[in-house]
């Protein structure tokens, strides 16, 4: 009797101790690792600032996009007149143009990545889940598309169907989903066969819970990493199109449009190229740092 009592008491103590120990989830772990990564956190902060400025930047300036004035053509960046980034060859304020361009470039980067994410996840998950001959056929098709210079198709799409901004969204999104599909398919395949799924099945965990607690957290890591790397890629693709005069059309502007105009006036007004190019490069750096940081934080191999 006493023996039994003592045993249950120690058991209770153990259970009590276990209850006080708070479990740490994969995501808490990852968040902690990520917050310790200085480059990645710096990237988040700078990118956040650029995003905020893309909203409030044009409001701060006394000028608007429509303010063309003959007296203020090609002014170098100055604190006077409130033309902080100077003006372009039509007298428009570069501060306003730069942040309006940021707005368009960032939106396009995020929207096209979202489209690519939707297509890629649906396609990859189907292929990985169904498996067999369907999987083989679907991935062969991806292989075929992979072997092509896809930017050419974007250019053909954009030139033949007219140059509007929504088409740019769709064209880029429809082309950039291939890698996403490959990643999701690979993850789905490998997770499907893992022992912990089997263990969960054996111990009678419901399918919904298995998907929520075991499948999604293990599939989503590489996807998140790839998403942060795809956004800058797509911003570059849009800039590339705009540089060739095929992307965003006036009066809308993007960093690509500004860089293209700046490149033509490089000898007389270098700031027209340097300012948007600098912000584009900073944005690229930020996304790459964040992507690398996320990869390090989410990859369980390097613990």
């Amino acid at each position, binding site marked *: 009797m006493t023996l039994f009592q003592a045993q249950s008491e120690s058991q209770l103590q153990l259970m009590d101790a276990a209850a006080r120990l708070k479990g740490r989830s994969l995501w808490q772990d990852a968040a902690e690792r990520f917050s310790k990564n200085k480059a990645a956190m710096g990237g988040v902060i700078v990118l956040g600032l650029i995003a905020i400025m893309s909203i409030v930047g044009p409001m701060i300036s006394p000028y608007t996009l429509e303010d063309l004035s003959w007296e203020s053509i090609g002014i170098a960046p100055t604190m006077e007149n409130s033309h902080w980034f100077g003006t372009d060859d039509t007298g428009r304020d570069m501060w306003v143009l730069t942040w309006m361009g940021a707005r368009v470039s960032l939106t396009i980067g995020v929207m096209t990545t979202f489209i690519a994410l939707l297509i890629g996840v649906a396609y990859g998950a189907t292929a990985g889940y169904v498996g067999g001959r369907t999987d083989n056929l679907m991935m062969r098709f991806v292989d*075929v598309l992979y072997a*092509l*210079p896809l930017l*050419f*198709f974007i250019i053909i799409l954009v030139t*033949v169907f007219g140059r509007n901004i929504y088409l740019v969204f769709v064209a880029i999104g429809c082309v950039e989903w291939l890698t996403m599909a490959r990643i999701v398919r690979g993850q789905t395949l490998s997770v499907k066969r893992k022992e912990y799924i089997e263990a969960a099945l054996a111990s009678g965990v419901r399918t919904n819970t298995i998907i929520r607690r075991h499948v999604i957290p293990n599939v989503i890591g590489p996807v998140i990493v790839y998403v942060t790397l795809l956004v800058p890629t797509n911003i570059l693709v849009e800039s*590339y199109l705009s540089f*060739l005069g095929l992307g965003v059309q006036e009066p809308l502007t993007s960093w690509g449009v500004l860089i293209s105009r700046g490149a033509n006036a*490089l000898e007389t007004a270098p700031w027209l190229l340097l300012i948007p190019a600098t912000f584009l490069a*900073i944005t690229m750096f930020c996304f790459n740092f964040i992507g690398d940081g996320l990869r390090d934080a989410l990859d369980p191999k390097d613990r």
Partner: protein
Amino acid sequence: MLTFALKRLAIAAPTLFFVVSLSFFLMHLAPGGPFDADANLEPQVIENLKAAYDLDKPLFQQYLIYLGKAAQGNFGPSIIYQDRTVSQLIATGLPVSLRIGLAAIFIAGLLGISMGIFSALRQNQRIDYVVMGVAMTGIAVPSFVLAPLMTLLFGVIFRLLPIATLEPSGGLARAVPALGPMVPYILPVIALAIPQIAIIARLTRGAMIEVLRQNYIRTARAKGMPEKRVVWRHAVQAGLLPVVSYLGPAIAGIVTGAVVVESIFQLPGMGRFFIQGAINRDYPLVLGIVIIFAAAVILMNLIVDLLYGVLDPKVKVDG
């Protein structure tokens, strides 16, 4: 090995066919045509023009006619360059594009792989961070920013290199006449190579670091093999596999990069014809160039697949 090669070839041929068909229907299904801009032409003249380019026939018939001619290497007459055929245009553009493309891929491979190996062997040392920082900049600063900046610096300020001409002029051509005809290609090749150098350097570094952690490297070191031999005989061979498989995408990157670089430096290459053709709806010109570019990329992927089968014992060659 032979069956493997034939299998790959059997995939490559339909891929090219798929590209041709997709581009053909994309271009022709869209509203508008190449003669929209000439609004003041008489209707009869436009009809005659369309007939001359087979544009009056049903779409599917046009497609068959095109396929038949293209299979014989005849891409038809160009619409914007009215006295020349697409094949003639390609014959003038291809050498220019090939020259800068091949030079860029060669430089990118050489520099990128060297930087990657150098960095991997000094992982997490200060010099590693410097090299990788440079590589990151190469990725973050696109070629359409680099190209104008380099033109300003070397063409306008220092007057070393010629701008927008294939004539060898500028300080460098005068100082070293032996370089002669190479001089005008220097800036375009650098602009084209830099993003690829950066990507290849990062790829090589990552793969090398992974390989250097492997057990067989530890074994080689443990049995007292000289470090040089460990690195060059064992690590580099395995570490370069991902770089080999990147060659396909690299060619695609060079090809798309060439479009911008040729436009900026005003080189009469394929990329510039492509953009002019696309903007002016010159169907035959765009299709011809897409076919050549796609064939180049597909061919490269084929070569990479075969190389991979030879280099990586894990790939089942006869599978």
